[in-house]
């Protein structure tokens, strides 16, 4: 390439317009005079840690919401249940030597920051609720190392699923730096299933209006960039047409496992298939609908079927009853939610434990910490210690989403910040 050629192309690169809301937010900052991003500007790389009170204000949270939670915890294997959410943690040890603690969470909103006070006292009070990750995205997943947070962000001016702004996938480091500003070629405007495997493997299956037949695979390099990006179209093995839906996704070694559904003539065809990078080498490893797939620590395929069966390498080892509608698998534990409430299933013992009378959106982490949503509250629970009550750790609105890190020590919550499809991300650390 010649230098003048480079310049011509550089000039020809389309310049993006502002995000919706840019001028409105700028005006607010100008009117406040000080500019509430001052602190972050001193430290920011992109994406930056955004000043808290600005986003609180944008989010319109009720002022001075305070919740006090007392937590009891047990189980040496999962001694995670003394948590500090946001600012202040009053930890102690109870008479049994078990950790316990009181959480005080303070949400500070618009009223509290009406004045651009710069005093140390007011800054200390405002800094209380913790950290916001400055990416305007909806959280999707955290990689197994806990280093990368995957989010979807609106692509201005491009229509996506359901006619809403298309969402593309980006990834950032939770510490505020970014290994790459690349966007993955996935429309995440509705939802995306994400699966991580060994050696940095990751796969995404976008869902649009309940449908999707593509899997995007990549490898997370040591520097946090994504390489070897491939887009695969998954076909039904019997019908030789693209499937209608991918119900569950997992890696087992270098193989992708997908549970697929193809609807034809009022009948659903379900397959569980496995394939390496090339889907033409797809193999059928089972029939029937699976709601969750995973890999055991020793590399065996774990599946939760729609009828509640729990399988290891295709063999049923137990059943969750009544059949759950959602499930997540990590290590040797399944966390499921459905008509029977939130339950865990231990693959080693084959036992089922009921953890909550109801709930949804279960997430199981490799550390043995589980999460689910109950009555608008995100709960943490240690399924291996079923005697422990679950612990509410944050309020979730209907459009809020969460992901937990594999070590169960941090939760990222994205909340809409307006009508533009953008979200901001809050980081909540759960300290042992």
């Amino acid at each position, binding site marked *: *390439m*010649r*230098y003048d050629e*480079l*310049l011509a*192309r*550089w*000039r*020809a*690169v*389309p*310049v*993006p*317009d*502002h*995000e919706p809301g*840019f*001028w409105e*937010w*700028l*005006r607010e*900052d*100008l*009117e406040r005079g000080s*500019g509430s*991003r*001052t602190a972050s*500007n001193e430290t*920011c*790389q*992109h*994406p*930056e840690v955004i000043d808290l009170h600005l986003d609180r204000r944008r989010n319109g949270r009720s002022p001075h919401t305070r919740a006090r939670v007392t937590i009891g915890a047990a189980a040496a294997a999962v001694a995670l249940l003394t948590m500090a959410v946001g600012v202040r943690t009053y930890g102690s040890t109870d008479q049994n030597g078990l950790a316990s603690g009181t959480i005080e969470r303070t949400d500070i909103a618009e009223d509290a920051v009406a004045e651009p006070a710069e005093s140390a006292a007011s800054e200390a009070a405002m800094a209380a609720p913790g950290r916001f990750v*400055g*990416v*305007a995205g909806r959280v999707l997943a955290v990689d197994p190392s806990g280093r990368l947070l995957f989010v979807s*962000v609106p692509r*201005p*001016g*491009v229509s996506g699923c359901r006619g809403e702004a298309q969402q593309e996938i980006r990834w950032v480091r939770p510490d505020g*730096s*970014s*290994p*790459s*500003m*690349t*966007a*993955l*070629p996935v429309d995440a405007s509705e939802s995306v299933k994400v699966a991580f495997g060994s050696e940095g493997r990751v796969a995404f299956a976008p869902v649009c209006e309940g449908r999707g037949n593509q899997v*995007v695979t990549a490898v997370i390099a040591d520097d946090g960039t994504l390489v070897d*990006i*491939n*887009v695969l179209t998954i076909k039904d093995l019997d019908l030789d047409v693209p499937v209608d839906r991918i119900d569950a996704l997992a890696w087992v070694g270098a193989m992708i496992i997908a549970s697929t559904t193809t609807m034809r003539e009022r009948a659903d065809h379900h397959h569980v298939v496995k394939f390496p990078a090339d889907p033409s080498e797809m193999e059928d490893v089972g029939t029937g609908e699976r709601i969750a797939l995973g890999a055991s620590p020793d590399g065996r395929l774990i599946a939760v079927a729609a009828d509640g069966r729990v399988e290891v390498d295709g063999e049923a080892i137990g059943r969750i009853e009544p059949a759950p509608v959602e499930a997540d698998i990590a290590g040797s534990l399944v966390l499921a939610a459905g008509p029977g409430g939130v339950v865990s299933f231990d693959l080693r013992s084959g036992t089922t434990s009921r953890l909550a009378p109801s709930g949804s959106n279960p997430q199981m982490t490799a550390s043995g910490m589980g999460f689910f949503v109950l009555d608008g509250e995100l709960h943490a629970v240690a399924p291996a210690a079923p005697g422990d009550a679950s612990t509410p750790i944050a309020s979730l609105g209907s459009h809020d989403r969460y992901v937990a890190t594999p070590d169960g020590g941090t939760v990222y919550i994205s909340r809409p910040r307006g009508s533009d499809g953008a979200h901001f991300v809050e980081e909540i650390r759960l300290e042992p």
Partner: protein
Amino acid sequence: MQGAWKEAATTDVKSGVSLTASEPDVRAADGGLPVQDPRGDVSAFEQVLRTHDNQMRALAYRMLGDRFAMEDALQDAYLRAYRALPRFRGEAKMSTWLYRIVTSACLDRLRRNKRAFDVELTDSIVAAHARDVIGFDDDERLDRADSVRAALEGLGPDQRAAVVLVDVQGLPHDIAASVLGIPVGTLASRLSRARSSLRTALAEVPR
């Protein structure tokens, strides 16, 4: 590159606005009459910003290569400008003054982030269309994007700013030197080194 001052233009594909590197005097933008003094008037200042925003967006995006980084830099720069407005004595054109503040905000980011030039921009440079170039089925195109990115990343922030301001944005040397706060000779030296470095690196980019 003086001739490029009036010629350098591109099109904002979304708004269809032509982005030119010419330098309108905002205070004379309204038929030569001063617009409302923006000092202390948020609305008036916003109008000033909007007048120059196309140029500033182009500058920030071409410097930083990412629309989110661009947004952050502009938010930062516009706030800085508002705070500094009482000290603006009108000795420079408003656009030059804004160029200086936006460039400074971008340089801050470039100096903090060694990987500032990202895939979004370089893919766009290679394929002229970022959306289609993530390029999972075109290894050669990806290789070229990587090579261009490596060439651009080989420039230091100061050299990069010089190239963007003069060769991409098309500012005259004296204006660009003023924006960067350096003598014209220093700018010429930086440009020479940057061009030489880029030419060498680009020679290795597959054609």
